[in-house]
């Protein structure tokens, strides 16, 4: 009878495991077709209007109480190289040479995805997509695995590596607590002297973007970047040149990042359901009456 008892025990052990992890499969599978909250806000960025004054960087720095920058905000030599967001700068503007004498500037910050890769990759659920559209971060639970930095298709989250006791992910939070929650536009949008950015309901901004493309034939490429990329983002862009010329990944998938992981997640329930029975069964077949030898007698001494 030992075999049957062990078989049941095996099944029980596996059942407990199944209970712990099967949630992983189901939740992620259900998350597939989320297209954003209906009244989520967003920002439409028109690259053709930006003059590279960097006042948005300064406004962000002040609003988010970030440390003094290494180079002053009126220092235009920063454009000599391509910068990315850091723990000290949640938004940066880069300059791109797009034609012989033509340059475009692009502001970079968190795009606040509808189905954020940072959120779906976080094992402590530190990220939240609010109904206003902001992707915010809970520093109280972050373990510091930095999977969000690996997962973000825009390479946005930075990490305060230098802090020994409380290192945290640092990224744009759409000025959620101070502005967007109350319906006010984020600091960078507010300060912009060129009206590069338009703050509004994401649905309205999609219409506005396409209207602007139609109203100005030849001015823009016929694409609103962020309308579809990685499942849609709250921040969207209009450009006069192909988007890969201004630092976007033109081949970015339209499905959310989590869709790549589903092949694996779909396999999880199968393993949990089939393996215990399969291997316990093989055990019974492989060891039954084999040379009259019993697997578990060695330790028993009754």
């Amino acid at each position: 009878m030992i075999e049957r008892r062990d078989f049941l025990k095996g099944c029980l052990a596996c059942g407990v495991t199944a209970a712990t992890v099967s949630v992983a499969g189901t939740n992620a599978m259900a998350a597939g077709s989320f297209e954003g909250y209906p009244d989520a806000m967003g920002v439409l960025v028109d690259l053709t209007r930006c003059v590279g004054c960097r006042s948005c960087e300064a406004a962000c720095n002040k609003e988010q109480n970030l440390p003094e920058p290494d180079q002053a905000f009126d220092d235009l030599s920063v454009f000599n190289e391509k910068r990315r967001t850091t723990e000290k700068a949640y938004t940066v503007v880069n300059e791109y040479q797009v034609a012989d004498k033509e340059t475009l500037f692009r502001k970079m910050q968190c795009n606040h995805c509808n189905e954020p890769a940072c959120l779906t990759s976080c094992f402590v659920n530190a990220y939240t997509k609010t109904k206003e559209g902001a992707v915010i971060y809970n520093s109280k639970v972050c373990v510091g695995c930095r999977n969000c930095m690996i997962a973000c298709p825009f390479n946005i989250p930075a990490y305060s590596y230098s802090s020994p006791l409380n290192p945290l992910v640092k990224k744009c939070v759409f000025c959620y607590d101070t502005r967007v929650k109350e319906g006010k536009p984020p600091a960078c949008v507010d300060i912009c002297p060129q009206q590069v950015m338009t703050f509004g309901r994401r649905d309205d901004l999609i219409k506005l973007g396409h209207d602007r493309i139609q109203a100005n034939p030849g001015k823009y490429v016929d694409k609103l970047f962020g309308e579809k990329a990685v499942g849609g983002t709250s921040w969207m862009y209009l450009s006069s040149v192909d988007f890969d010329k201004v630092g976007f990944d033109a081949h970015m998938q339209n499905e959310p990042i989590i869709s790549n992981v589903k092949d694996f997640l779909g396999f999880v329930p199968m393993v949990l359901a089939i393996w215990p029975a399969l291997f316990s069964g093989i055990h019974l077949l492989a060891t039954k009456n084999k040379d009259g030898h019993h697997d578990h007698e060695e330790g028993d001494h009754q």
Partner: protein
Amino acid sequence: MKAFLARNPNTQLITSLRKDDDKGRPWTLMEKIFLGLTPQQYLSQAMSNPLNWIFAVIFMIGIPVLIGRYIFGLSWAVGDPYDNAWGLFLAFGLFGMVPLSSSGFQLGTAVEIFGRHDLEPIERLGLLNGLLGYFFAVMFLMVDLGQPWRLPYPMVVSFGPAAVLFLVAWHVATYLSVQMAEVSTSFFEWMGWPAGKTFIKKMTLGLTVAGIILSTLHQGALGALSTYAPGKVHPLWYSASFQWLYFFVSSLPGGLCMVIVVSTIAIKTMQWRCDETFKNSLEKLQITLAKGASMGLITYLTIRLVGIAHDNKWAYLATGWGAWWMFEIGFGVILSLALLTAGVRKNSATLVRMGAWTTILGVILHRLNVYMFTFNWQQGHVHVPPWREIIITITMYSIYIVTYRAILYRWPILFKWKTRYSEYAVLEPKPAAVASAAQAEACPSGK
């Protein structure tokens, strides 16, 4: 130790619970820790081992750097890698060590599930190799995490169940306890606690099947983690459909070959610790393991190629990254496969051992390629870890080797402990009562 035993051929090392003379008095814990030598003798053999001097130098430099990482922050050790957030600690320490530790579940399965009792002399080494590999992968994680003291958070404070890493965290934690239970039988024998061993033995089948499930899923999950970064991992190393299979399938030969390598090192450097059964059967066992490993490798090679064909990525092979990919496959997979199969056919342990080395190097190279070398390949530069990160990695790995060796020296892994519990129970009046109490605990229904 080898040199010491050559000088003192009459030394009696502890291989049993009780002394032969002295009316069968059990060895004390201190005696067992010093292997039956006096502390002076033990120290003198340790000093005469050149490897210990190398470790001394590594620790003298490495331990202060390791401590510095916690005092001055992560950036002091690894810089500010915003784009390549996972460096050597994870790419090597976690993603590289875990596949080489799949030996625990494979040997457990072969012996306990498939009834391959011929593999028994090497089963315990396989289990221990698994346990230590996972344990040190977690230690590497503790070095890498920004806030390692929050490691239990995904278990108790805040849950992100849709994340692959959530599955990895739970599985590795669960599997670590499963492996501790599996290896604990050796520890209980060594300590002389038969009740513990009896208790664990009763759960063997459940533990082993749990080990298969957990291993299948988290070995695969370590690959699935990179499917969060489709544009960042180079296309030759990326496949949404096959990624988790690459990681799972390569972990099978990886784990078996790690046991071949470790057992080879053991037989060469600590023959005194191996019993006759182990010594006499080792070459045959290694060839058996190599058979399994070659089947894993040929499957792995096939799916790596099918993955390229599936997404039609052949054109990338003509690039520089393609050459690097062909090197990884040529050296780590095809050469390994040739050496292992030749070794099996010619019955040559030497060839098998060479093939085992190239296999584990190939598996580690694959993990480094996915998570470090090709990561963000479009940015046009390869992430090179700073020197402190390299030193800490070498230090952690040295601690792993020292721990591994210390256990092999003492616990009955490479030799059989010379006291059967049936005899032991007769000699000692107490343990029988303890054992039956433990049984009652194991079956609360009172069966």
